[in-house]
């Protein structure tokens, strides 16, 4: 019978890291291990990958064994993750839109999304906050400091 899995998310993480370690070791082994003198460009990646494999292997075993002194906080709850990931997807979408509508408008949209969808507040103040922040950024960075930001077809 398989031993009880104490820490499911930790196990997945450890396995992912092990796979990653395998990838790094493999790629590292394809690069030259030794150069003229001393280690080549493959030396470090190879050993980093090996270390990753070793330690993630250890982690995998730990996930099956009895917890030593795990406090309550070790109970990884994924309860709020949905909100966090929605926020991340929204941010990624806004980055994607920079090319077409520029930073300022995209940022206003992101702010509205955050405030209206994630925090469940009303839309009008959200618009106000978004525009205010975008304006501050524009004045501070573009005008005062001369930094360029991604612009849309309307020049800002």
């Amino acid at each position: 019978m398989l031993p009880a899995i104490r820490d499911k998310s930790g196990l997945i993480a450890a396995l992912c890291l092990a796979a990653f370690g395998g990838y790094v070791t493999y790629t590292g082994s394809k690069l030259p291990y030794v150069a003229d003198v001393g280690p080549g460009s493959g030396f470090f990646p190879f050993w980093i990958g090996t270390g990753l494999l070793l330690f993630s292997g250890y982690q995998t075993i730990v996930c099956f064994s009895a917890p030593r002194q795990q406090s309550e906080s070790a109970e990884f709850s994924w309860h709020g993750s949905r909100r966090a990931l929605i926020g991340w997807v929204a941010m990624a979408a806004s980055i994607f839109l920079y090319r077409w509508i520029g930073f300022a408008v995209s940022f206003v949209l992101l702010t509205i999304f955050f405030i209206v969808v994630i925090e469940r507040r009303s839309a009008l103040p959200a618009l106000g906050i978004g525009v205010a922040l975008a304006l501050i950024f524009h004045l501070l960075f573009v005008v005062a400091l001369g930094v360029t930001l991604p612009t849309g077809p309307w020049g800002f």
Partner: protein
Amino acid sequence: MDALTNLLLGFSVALQPVNLFWCFVGVVLGTVVGVLPGLGPAATIAMLLPLTLKMDHTTAIISLAGIFYGARYGGSTTSILLNMPGESSSVATCLDGYQMARNGRAGAALGISAIASFIAGTVGVLGLMLISPPLARFALRFAPPEYFALMVLGLAMVVFLAGDSMVKALLALLIGLWLATIGTDLFTAESRFTFGQAKLLGGIDFIAATVGMFAIGEVLMDLESNSGGEIIKLPRGLKNLMPTWQDLKDCRFAFVNGSLIGFFVGALPGAGATVASFLSYGLEKAVSRHPEKFGTGVIEGVAAPEGANNADAGGALVPLLTLGIPGGNTTAILLGGLILWGYKPGPLLIPEHPELFWGLVASMYVGNVILLVLNLPLVPLFAQILRLPSYVLHPFIIGISVVGVYSVNNSVFDIWMMALFGLLGYLMRKLDFPASALILGLVLGDVLERALRQSLMMSQGDLTILINRPISATMLAIAAGLLLLPAVRWVRAWRAEVVERES
């Protein structure tokens, strides 16, 4: 000419109204630039170089240097308040600084940071004034084996960043080391892990990685809870707006630690303020009576790295002014400025242009005082940012992060990197992997690998070069000791457990 006479000459230059004014402008601009992530002092100085051509040269260097060390003051503000490092050298400040802010002591953290920066900055100027030539000569003795040993010592600090799980810290460190290998290999010009992208040939942009992991990661963590209101409850009372006398007493060693480590590491060409700040943090934790509290909001954990990154500015000027060798990006552009104005930076710069050097040194004293006077009263003001409701703060942080990261290379690719690192930072927080260990690996990985390969090139493959040389042998021995400590502790704990079980 002895130092005191020179210093008086310097003050007579530095206290002229025009130089005072431009010193003020420089340090204020530096502070602003340091607060904002991405836009760094190097780029700002580069932007302002054309304007300086119309100024007197001493005035110009006073102003530009002001930007340089002023930025180190500013870098702590967003690190403490928003877990967003404004400079790469402020990453170590985030570790305890942000936790202090979460505990309601943002003001104390900001205040101690200003005080530590002032003390360290002053020590840096003193060092620059008194021991530049011998220090520069000592720094020349640092060859690749010594750099390698220094990096190993820095990595041994992982031991002190570990928290509960050493293995997880090591895994995070390894990921960081891997990230450092991405890009073109210096020696063989081969590309590693670039996935065919020309944009990755230069490696991962450090600012994108740290801002992503810390700031964006923090925003994502915050989004989990449906608090809707303030992120941090700010208790009232002066105790939390300013450091107390007890705080100052607690930080006695941190002040010394930060100043000395920052100054010495700064004088080594190629080692940066980031290394200095992590080393200082690690040392502080090592000698502390309560090391396990580091990472939860310990004030010495803010004072040490903040002092280190300020003293580093003074140290970085040592090789520049005594030998004409730039130690890093910002000093390289300062060198460029000197060349543009017609000076020839080298060992003869100081003897031939004493008013330039001593005027600069004296102005740095003045600049440090200005910065302290400027920053301390602003501390309660800055701390009020935390009163903003989370639904305003979140977009604000994302906005500043994006602009900051974009301003480094004008590249949307970097913003994507930031987003990916944000996700990574979030996942690491959830799974209890220390992000600081990853950053440590990323920062040190480059220099570590380079130094090892350079050392072996020097010795034709003979590893004993690392222990044959006194300086590197000493540092490696200390590092070995540090790494063995947890093993010893683990063995002792295991033995105690065995004894307990048997009784």
